[in-house]
């Protein structure tokens, strides 16, 4: 038995490329050390796979990360091998790889072994360590044969999770690739599904489980205290279980950590799902928001929306955040942001050019309304009342209030236009109002054109009138949500869009 196994996880079941990858691995390591995991969809044609490989596992169609975990567990690969090299059909195992892997790849008991060069086309390496936990060495750098630093890094990732089974594999695999498994932690808020098991697999057991379901903020606080994260790390990256990090996101934020920085936020994008209007709308708005609001706010140091789904928090700020106050409110991240701004805990920086964090969006109108009108918008009003923001005169409060009032202003626009029409004399009104409306639409089309060109999403130009209509509807509902904010239950509950398991890599 070799010390190294190759696990082939094809993105597509069929095709010559899968057979070529498989044959290259078998030639180098022998049939018994090569494993294949395929989905059990109807269109599967075994063909060359069955002739070449004996260790085949069929799994339900789902994310690549989940397939990796299920195969590693099914074949007990981490008990039987020192390292598992995971490839898809884009990779070939070249002659000499087996010797290279045994001599250079595997250092017993180490977490960080060798950086796979892009030309090796190795997508992932799991290596057994003393603790028996898997390690993804992709993206990690270590001396080839030198000392391996197994100590904590300067940044850890903390993922709060409540019943996140469908999406957790993909999220954690990407997180492990960012900072190494030793530095990934999960705050499991007493989930009823397999969240705890999956979290344990990818983090090597760094899982804090709440004694009872108590809400996101309290679960986070519990995990931070349990693992003494603020003492051991310079900063903690909070990552929601439905947010998928593109490679390099955390490292880019880490580089911005100065002593006076409390929160660092990178570029956020919608996790793309094709042919879904709500995702298309949110992706467009998010793109505009990053450019037209977050970037200027960053220049003026008045950022007022913190994406709680992916934010780097300095340990100093994390120690001083009022977690209990946040847990009483519906929008815990807005409350944390207020702590920083009013408590003068430091700056909030936004880096526009980071690889994106991809957040899951609601896929239906109902889910969209539940997230926004049900939670976000009344939550904004709730936090603003809690902090008495309308009575404050600092720049953060003033710009936040103006932004919020901008929405109310927008909702009232038909009334304002009617007033204008009646106040102005007929000729002026007849020309002025259409010019104003046309100017707004022209701006939208310029932006939509830029977006369509940059992101190669030309549908935005066709859907733009609908986007504008939805945006107007949002402003009306936002205004109405002021009333709803008085009837909000206390926070602390988990409110997530319906989870849809990622399929292959096509959602990226």
């Amino acid at each position, binding site marked *: 038995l070799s010390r190294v196994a190759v696990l082939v996880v094809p993105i597509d079941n069929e095709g010559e490329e899968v057979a070529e990858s498989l044959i290259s691995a078998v030639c180098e390591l022998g049939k018994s050390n090569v494993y294949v995991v395929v989905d059990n969809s109807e269109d599967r044609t075994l063909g060359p796979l069955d002739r070449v490989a004996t260790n085949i596992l069929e799994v339900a169609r789902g994310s690549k990360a989940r397939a990796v975990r299920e195969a590693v567990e099914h074949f007990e690969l981490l008990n039987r091998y020192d390292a598992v090299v995971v490839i898809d059909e884009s990779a070939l195992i070249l002659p000499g790889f087996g010797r290279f892997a045994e001599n250079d790849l595997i250092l017993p008991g180490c977490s960080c072994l060798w950086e796979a060069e892009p030309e090796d086309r190795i997508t992932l390496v799991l290596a057994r360590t003393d603790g028996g936990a898997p390690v993804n060495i992709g993206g990690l750098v270590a001396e080839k044969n030198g000392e391996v630093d197994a100590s904590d890094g300067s940044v850890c990732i903390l993922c709060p999770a409540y019943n996140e089974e469908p999406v957790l594999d993909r999220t954690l695999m990407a997180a492990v690739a960012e900072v190494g498994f030793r530095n990934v932690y999960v705050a499991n808020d007493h989930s009823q599904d397999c969240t705890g098991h999956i979290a344990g697999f990818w983090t090597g057991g760094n899982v804090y489980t709440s004694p009872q379901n108590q809400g996101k903020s309290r679960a986070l606080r519990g995990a931070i205290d349990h693992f003494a994260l603020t003492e051991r790390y310079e900063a903690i990256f909070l990552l929601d279980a439905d947010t998928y990090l593109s490679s390099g996101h955390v490292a880019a934020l880490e580089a911005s950590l100065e002593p006076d920085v409390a929160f660092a936020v990178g570029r956020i994008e919608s996790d793309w799902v094709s042919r879904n209007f709500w995702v298309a709308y949110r992706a467009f708005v998010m793109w505009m*928001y990053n450019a037209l609001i977050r970037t200027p706010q960053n220049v003026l140091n008045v950022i007022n929306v913190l994406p709680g789904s992916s934010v780097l928090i300095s340990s100093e700020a994390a120690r001083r955040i009022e977690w209990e106050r946040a847990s009483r409110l519906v929008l815990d991240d807005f409350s944390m942001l207020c702590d920083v701004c009013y408590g003068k805990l430091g700056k909030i920086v936004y880096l526009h050019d980071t690889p994106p964090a991809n957040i899951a969006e609601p896929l239906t109108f109902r889910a969209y309304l539940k997230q926004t009108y049900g939670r976000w918008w009344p939550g904004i009003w709730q936090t603003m009342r809690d902090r008495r923001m309308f009575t404050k005169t600092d720049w953060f409060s003033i710009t936040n209030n103006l932004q919020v009032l*901008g*929405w109310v202003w*927008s909702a009232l626009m038909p009334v304002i236009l009617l007033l204008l029409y009646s106040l102005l004399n007929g000729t002026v009104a007849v020309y002025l109002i259409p010019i104003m409306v046309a100017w*707004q639409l022209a701006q939208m089309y310029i932006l939509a054109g830029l977006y369509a060109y940059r992101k190669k999403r030309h549908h935005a130009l066709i859907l733009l009138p609908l986007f504008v209509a939805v945006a*107007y509807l*949002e402003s009306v509902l936002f205004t109405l949500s002021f009333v709803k904010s008085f009837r909000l239950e206390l926070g602390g509950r988990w409110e997530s869009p319906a989870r849809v398991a990622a399929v292959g890599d096509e959602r990226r």
Partner: protein
Amino acid sequence: VYGGLLPSTGGFLNPLRALYILIAVAVFGGGWLARKLRKQPATHSE
């Protein structure tokens, strides 16, 4: 929370939005110009 000052929503006659757009144009336009200038080969001769 996404929206607020974007064109077509809170955009009309909103001074804050005008300020933000100016800054965004300056930041991205400036960045684009700087990249262009860096890419341009030196034209001076000895």
